[in-house]
């Protein structure tokens, strides 16, 4: 048994550490490249914003991968948390900007405006669009950036905690749980669509691209700042999740995914672990949303429609579940390609009898590629990395597959 003399390879953890390093270095290089190109005016401000938004989506996808790929909870409602994070920061952005505008308008009058007049002015400005000037109760904290930042974390976190507790406690699993999460995001979307919710109904919150306190900053500067903030958030979120899914926590989460009944008999309270993963990923998704919408400039209830969360799952599936970089690659690749097709970047295809317009046919293409990936390459785009590392390293296994003489040898395992 010469195999026994080989040093024991401790399985996947070092590989995972390597992939984290590679991911972070690649992300940093990408951020620097974009900054240089933007500085040299080789890419437009709107393209920088698109890339920044894409990084936020990648962070949401990485969180989705932890909850789905690792823990086995196919949540089709995570974009609700993304939207809530966006609404939370959007309320402050809108309030602070409106406050500045109202103050400058009132400054023309002889007497300095009273706080009451100021509030009235803000209320009229923000809620005039839904035929009201009263400031709803949920805007109570909107004047304060720290409080509204706390809401970015607390609102998605609490919703996930309560929803998850109710759902996991009743041991709803599999497709039924997915349907429940769809119902959650649909309910939220319908609720936000109402004018009397206090979040401007279907108008949503707008003008979010203007950052109060930096009146002199150009959109070019703001876009680069948010791009970097998004890259930093993705890096930190990636590190956080790489830590969570390593070690014993990762082991238990994957065990819950594969056989939760068995995990219970080991003494782990499965529901608590699911709730942990669900809530933590909801909070990170909320933060991703809070960085996304200032770059998008507008948020409305359509953003938390059920389809948004399904897209998130599709990105993770195409990128490759169960590996964090796979989810990030999937989100970045698919959303950029999607943007290219839907913004008219792809030339229409004239078949003579019929003209394929990609703005309409892109969804068909996306659906087909989702089905193909699911059927033919369940590891997704991330599986390509395996092909490459295996070719460089030779077979991953050095010892035979079994203890017996008839067991498969490592050479046979490469097929």
């Amino acid at each position, binding site marked *: 048994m010469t195999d026994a003399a080989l040093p024991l390879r401790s399985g996947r953890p070092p590989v995972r550490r390597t992939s984290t390093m590679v991911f972070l270095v690649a992300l940093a290089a990408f951020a620097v490249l974009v900054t240089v190109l933007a500085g040299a005016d080789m890419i437009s401000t709107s393209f920088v914003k698109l890339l920044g938004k894409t990084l936020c989506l990648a962070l949401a996808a990485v969180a989705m991968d932890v909850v789905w790929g690792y823990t086995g909870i196919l949540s089709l409602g995570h974009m609700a948390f993304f939207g809530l994070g966006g609404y939370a920061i959007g309320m402050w952005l809108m309030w602070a900007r409106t406050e500045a505008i109202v103050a400058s308008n009132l400054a023309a009058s002889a007497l300095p405006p009273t706080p009451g007049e100021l509030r009235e002015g803000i209320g009229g400005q923000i809620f005039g669009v839904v035929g009201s000037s009263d400031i709803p109760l949920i805007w109570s904290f909107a004047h304060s950036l720290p409080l509204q930042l706390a809401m970015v974390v607390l609102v998605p976190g609490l919703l996930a905690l309560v929803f998850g507790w109710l759902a996991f406690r009743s041991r709803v699993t599999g497709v039924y749980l997915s349907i429940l999460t769809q119902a959650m995001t649909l309910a939220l979307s319908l609720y936000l669509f109402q004018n009397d919710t206090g979040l401007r109904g279907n108008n949503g919150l707008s003008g979010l691209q203007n950052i109060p306190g930096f009146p002199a900053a150009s959109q070019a500067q703001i876009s680069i700042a948010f791009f970097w903030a998004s890259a930093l958030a993705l890096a930190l979120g990636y590190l956080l999740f790489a830590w969570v899914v390593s070690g*014993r*926590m990762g082991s238990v989460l994957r065990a819950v995914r594969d056989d939760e009944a068995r995990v219970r008999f080991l003494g782990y*309270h499965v529901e608590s672990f699911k709730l942990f993963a669900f809530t933590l990923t909801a909070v990170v998704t909320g933060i991703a949303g809070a960085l996304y919408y200032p770059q998008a400039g507008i948020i409305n209830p359509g953003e938390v429609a059920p389809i948004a969360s399904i897209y998130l799952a599709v990105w993770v599936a195409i990128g490759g579940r169960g590996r964090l970089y796979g989810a990030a690659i999937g989100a970045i690749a698919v959303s950029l390609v999607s943007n290219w097709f839907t913004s008219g970047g792809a030339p229409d295809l004239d078949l003579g009898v019929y003209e394929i317009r990609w703005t309409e046919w892109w969804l068909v293409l996306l659906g087909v590629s989702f089905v193909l990936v699911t059927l033919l390459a369940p590891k997704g785009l991330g599986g390509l990395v395996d092909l490459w590392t295996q070719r460089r390293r030779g077979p991953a296994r050095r010892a035979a597959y079994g203890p017996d003489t008839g067991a498969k040898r490592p050479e046979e395992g490469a097929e």
Partner: protein
Amino acid sequence: MTLLEVDGISVSFDGFQAINGLSFAIGEPELRAVIGPNGAGKTTFMDIVTGKTRPDSGRVLWGETNRNILGQSESAIARLGIGRKFQKPTVFEDQTVRENLAMALKDRRGPFSVLFGLPADEGRLLDFAEEVGLAAQLDRLAGELSHGQKQWLEIGMLLAQEPRLLLVDEPAAGMTPAEREHTTDLLKRLARRHAVVVVEHDMDFVRRLDCRVTVLHEGRVLAEGSLDHVTQNQDVIDVYLGR
């Protein structure tokens, strides 16, 4: 001392009376074999003790304080010190032997203890791996192990939990004669300090265990005593051995 006492439990599934007024007690330490034909209620009995199935009536009393543990969650019951080995080896095939054992090691089980806790104690882990002969396989995926090795891994995970009561469902299934002997030795050794309940079909295996035997039939205890005693019982011969 009686560690576990099952008192008059009954359960039916869709009109089928799986357990019918079953009473059973095991001390600590003690080795007990449970035998019975298919459908006698052996697995349902284990499901009830481990909290997977709620009985329609009866009590399950545990430990020094004779606390009724019915209604507690599976995980809480496992943490009390009741470990279970399934008939079909159920290990986490996608994870290494080391990860499987580390998960089972007796330790705090809350999410935050797991997240912030120290890595598994390598020394303890190695002890259990050696006990079940898997020390050289620590870094292999459990899914690559042979059937017999998976059985051993599951037994190793059961030991690593350091339970007071071990419920072992057909431990020798799929093992070679030498492995069966090893299993018998291990179970007998464990029973010096723990309560061990072995469900088994194989009479030779039960004979080698050399312990008290409980015969189940149609969800209740048909006979109890030494193997020789129960095999001479006319009821037992009629329903089980005579066929």
